[in-house]
């Protein structure tokens, strides 16, 4: 089912938290909404679910405007933070909670089906407090999917899990959503999460959607300097575009052609090469080195005081104070204006 948000404004008296959100989610699409804490992510989800009344704007689900439709009539599935399982009900009753109009037999069959789907078959009689964090989260997803919602909303569902477990549960939940052909919106403040699971990522900033794009596109071509820094790591180099090159402190770098203008080049750490000083190549002093296993993150200070971050192989080893030649071989992405 398609979900469209048109110019959605919402808040709690005073300054609105959402200042005109536009977003279109296609049928069976999985969109991640990425935002810093306090950016209004939860408010956005609750507004879609009908739990928060927007000040202005429209929520359209499957072509129907949901204005005035109460949450219990919207057929929207919700997976809140930490799962929010009903602590007084066992797993079966939790999953069957939204099936209260079905017959007993249908209910039992559907519960078994969903538990199998989330890899929790046979867990019917367990109580929420007996489950691990990841299991609770999977039951919460099963519960949301049970009445076949038209769209599933997930509110930071993996935030409470250990880092190691998080990736597993995330992949599993993404599989389930894909298998059931669910239209889903997941909100998160974790960039890695947003880039890894969604079909597309919408970045929420200052109460608006700053950019919607596929993860690779968002990472490779952020629309603004702020987005470049927010989604992944980037060195922002001020420069002047001259045809299909941008002239920066690291020399003239190839970029998409455009009219001459002051621009900012977005250089990802993995695009930067370091080497022994060579005449004609800009050099900088190594300022800090972080060893991260297969690689090292090296921060280099250029003569003008500008700092560039490089992610290079663990060998050869760089040390603070080394002088390195800094180069960017490939084309770079540029954004308008200076950062």
């Amino acid at each position, binding site marked *: 089912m398609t979900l469209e948000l048109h110019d959605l404004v919402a808040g*709690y008296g005073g300054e609105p938290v959402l200042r005109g959100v536009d977003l279109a989610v296609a049928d069976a699409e999985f969109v991640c909404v990425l935002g810093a804490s306090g950016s209004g992510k*939860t408010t956005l989800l*609750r507004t879609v*679910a*009908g*739990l928060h009344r927007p000040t202005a704007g429209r929520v359209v689900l499957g072509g129907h405007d949901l204005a005035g439709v*109460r*949450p*219990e*009539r*919207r*057929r*929207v*599935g*919700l*997976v*809140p*933070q*930490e*799962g*929010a*399982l*009903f*602590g*007084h*009900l*066992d797993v079966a009753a939790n999953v069957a*909670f*939204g099936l*209260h*109009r079905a017959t007993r037999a249908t209910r039992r069959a559907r519960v078994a089906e969903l538990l199998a789907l989330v890899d929790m078959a046979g867990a019917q009689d367990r*109580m*929420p*407090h007996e489950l691990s964090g990841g299991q609770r989260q999977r039951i*919460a997803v099963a*519960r*949301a999917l*049970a*009445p076949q*919602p038209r769209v599933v*909303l997930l*509110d930071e569902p993996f935030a409470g899990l250990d880092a190691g477990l998080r990736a597993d549960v995330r992949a599993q939940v993404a599989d389930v959503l894909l298998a059931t052909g669910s239209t889903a919106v997941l909100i998160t403040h974790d960039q890695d999460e947003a880039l890894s699971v969604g079909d597309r990522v919408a970045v929420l900033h200052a109460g608006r959607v700053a950019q919607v794009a596929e993860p690779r596109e968002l990472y490779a071509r952020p629309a603004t300097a702020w987005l470049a820094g927010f989604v992944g790591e980037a060195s922002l180099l001020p420069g002047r575009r001259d045809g299909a090159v941008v002239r920066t402190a690291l020399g003239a770098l190839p970029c998409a052609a455009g009219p001459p203008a002051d621009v900012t080049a977005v250089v990802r750490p993995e695009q930067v090469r370091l080497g022994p000083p060579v005449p004609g190549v800009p050099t900088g002093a190594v300022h800090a080195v972080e060893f991260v296993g297969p690689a090292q993150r090296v921060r280099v200070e250029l003569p003008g005081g500008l700092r560039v971050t490089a992610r290079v192989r663990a060998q050869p080893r760089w040390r603070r104070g080394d002088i390195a030649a800094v180069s960017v071989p490939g084309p770079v992405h540029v954004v308008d204006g200076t950062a």
Partner: protein
Amino acid sequence: MVAALPLGYLVVRVAGAGDRVAAVLGRERTWLLAANSLVLVLLVAAGSLVLGTATGWLLTRVRLPAPRLWWVLAALPLAVPSYLLAFAVVATWPGTNGLLPLTAVLVLACTPYVTLPAAAAFRMADAGQEDVARTLGRGPVATFRAVTLPQVLPAALAGTLLVALYTLSDFGAVALLRYDVFTWAIRAAYEGTFDRSAAAVLALVLVALTLALVGAERWARRRWVRGRTGVAVRAVPQVVLGRGATAAAVLGLAAVAAASLAFPLAVLAGRLVQGTRGGVDVPDLLRAAGSTLALGLGGAVLAVALAAPVAVLAARHHGRLVAALESTAYLGHGLPGIVVGLSLVFFSLAAVPALYQSAAVLVLAYAVLFLPKAIGASRAAVERVPPAVEEVARTLGRGAARTWLVVTARQAWPGIAAGGLLVMVTAMKELPATLMLRPTGVDTLATELWRQTALGAYGAAAPAALLLVLMACVPAALLARDPGAGR
């Protein structure tokens, strides 16, 4: 040990009474008393559960004007002893008696025991669960019933148990409103006959009823409350009611506050004005106030001294022996004051006759009765001191005892002192045990109030009553500190 003493002695005494036991148990009157007590307890418990849960909901989930005020007003009836409220009723409408007025009085006096924990539970309930229930097709009412209530019910039920225990052991209000229950009959049996075994048997039946109540609450908890409910990730936002509904809510809260607080205070003030015209015996009153303070302080010091080792053990070690020790200490919680009073009368007469009707026995009675309050407060205070802090002190070269003194006790003392204060004020309001055990010729404010009311001298009783309320306001104000005020 000390806590188990009265009950143990009562059992010994009844066992020694032989066939008198059967005679008392066989009496139709004994069963009538039991039925009366149960009816009263059921009515008051049900009333407090409903009123307290509703008040808790209003206080936490609805945006009200002047929210702090309603919190304080909802907690403050804790400061008004039930017999004071009964006194106000009797003084205003002489001749009032029976089940229904008594139920109303006790519900008003006891509801805060439910309101405060229920409000805390409403506040701690997770918004996520209610959101999910709504999206899964339940309306607001169905959501409240299926999801919110199960999260609040354990706390509300625990509060209701306190209400039931309070009702069962209440002496002053039932006596003033002339409703025939155990506490009243025990005292009558004690005063009226030479054979005090009958009183002991009745007291033991009352203890059995008390245990049955505790058991019933445990059963209800297991039956309806399964599992643990999660921790709130996000608090539930408050409902903004329409103008009419807000006015109705405020009016309801105000009516309860007026009936439980303003009404008795107004009656007292009125009586005070009339009474002073007849002349108040000020030295007498001051003497009563002085002995009340001294006895209360004695009880508090003894209770805290007895509580400290149990509290430290309970906070730091979780063995089975410690659990048993702690629950023994909690006996006093369920034992009605009249039972403790009666058993200590027997005990002092049999064991140390010199102590009979001495202040020491009364202080001991207070300590037994209110030990749980002291333990609860001290335990919570000690638990808040992280064990790591003690460990650091030990590695820095302090011995175990010295560490406890300079680190643990140093940080925990405000909580321990608050527990002592609570014991002291509760002891100052205590009536039935005081009536039985007070040294001859010594009056406390509570017994003074009792004596004057029994004579129908409502005006003369008013000053003592007013002093009592003022003193009891202190811990109620402490308890009323809004747990979520910072939010």
